[in-house]
């Protein structure tokens, strides 16, 4: 399933870089598209603003097929407090913009599965695909608005995985 998780994240990251090249973050001195996998970064006590954070949750496998079909729930959490120049009064608009970017990132609802344990990444035989996202109600914490989108990511296990 790791290849599927990696492929899903990289697909979203690459798409975000095209959809909104200005949405970047500097992590460990490297500027990159503003999306990260929670379990692959240092723990954070609070959800950072203006970044998409992927959190992998429940995982199940379907063994009734010739190729094992895995499905994993991915929560994509994001928050914003708006912009400083507008004193945060644009936080609703900023969240809507992130909603829009997220939906664009998730479309099309599939991507080629890649193996990132080698460089360059090797193209595998199947595609990773996922459900349309379910968006939670907006959560308000002082000046911060946040939302969680949930998708289920499917992938067929290939030989050697």
């Amino acid at each position, binding site marked *: 399933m790791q290849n599927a998780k990696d492929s899903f994240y990289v697909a979203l990251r690459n798409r975000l870089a095209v959809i909104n090249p200005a949405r970047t973050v500097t992590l460990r001195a490297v500027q990159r598209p503003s999306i990260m996998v929670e379990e692959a970064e240092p723990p954070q006590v609070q959800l950072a603003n203006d970044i998409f954070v992927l959190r992998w949750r429940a995982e199940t496998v379907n063994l009734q097929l*010739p190729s094992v079909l895995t499905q994993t729930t991915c929560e994509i959490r994001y928050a914003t407090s708006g912009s400083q120049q507008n004193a945060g009064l644009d936080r609703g608009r900023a969240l809507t913009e992130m909603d829009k970017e997220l939906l664009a990132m998730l479309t099309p609802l599939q991507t080629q599965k890649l193996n990132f344990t080698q460089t360059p990444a090797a193209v595998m035989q199947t595609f990773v695909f996922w459900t349309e996202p379910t968006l939670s109600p907006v959560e308000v914490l002082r000046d911060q608005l946040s939302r969680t989108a949930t998708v289920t990511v499917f992938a067929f296990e290939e030989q050697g995985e």
Partner: protein
Amino acid sequence: MSTTTTLLSTPLVTRRVQAYFAPVNRAQEQATIFDPAVNGSFNLSAPPAPWVALGWIENFARQSGSKVAPLSSGSPATTLYQVRESTDATVSFAFKTWSKLSMALAAGAQHMNVLAAPLTGIAIGSGAKATPAAALGVGSSATSLVMSAPTSLTAGSIVSVDADYLGQTGWIGSGISAAYVNSASAVGDDADYVRRVSFNVGRVVSATSTTLQLAQPLLAGNPSTGMKVQQVLGFVDREGGSFFPEWSAVFVMQGEQGDRLIFHYPRLQPTSYPREVSNVLAAAIEMVGPQAAFRALPVVDGNDGEQVLCYRTYLPSPSALV
């Protein structure tokens, strides 16, 4: 001091049904017979030739349409005997995956290859007249095709490997009787018609300009002289047509205690046209497989000459009472 071994009688506990199919030689009217005495304990992942594993199936349902009636006499009438009025059996199930063979089995009628065609051809629902075939050179095998001239086919291509149609009538197709031709005019005297219906197909896994390596051996074995190669884009079947495919089938329920239940249908013909069954994976995502339904036709049992539609064999667990 004595030791008593207690043998258990247990129900068959199984998780899945596995399906295996083999061709019926239509020209000779010979089904492929599965012999439980010889092959009953076969490795489910490596069935004996010529059986082809088609994986796990679901919604497996056997139905007997055989009728038994009482023969009565006297007043009041009393049943004295029973008579067998008719023998009939059907079986249905859904394949979990799509392949050439699973689609053909579930087709219910003629199944065809969609041959690659020039873009300028006249549109035909089952595929336009094909791009001309490429001849095979010397040294081809069931897994390696040596072309007589450089080819543009690449890894990932699907190919149909069979002879030209030369105006013959009757059963055609190498390895498996793929179609019945009534007259050359019915198939437009099309030189590619055998390759259009052939089951002798394979996926190219690697290619050079003159050699194509296949992922699996061709069903008909090493190509014979005169066979040619054409690119296949996919497969097509139709609601309609007069052709009845026929297959031999084995279904296996493997028990958790090592026991095994085997159903063998020597001759199956479809009772329905193409249908699909879907399982919901998640909201707006479905898993779709071909649905198959068959009627069993009889063979003569070699032990006592009785006409038989299907066999049920139970191989007990090593620890079970019999």
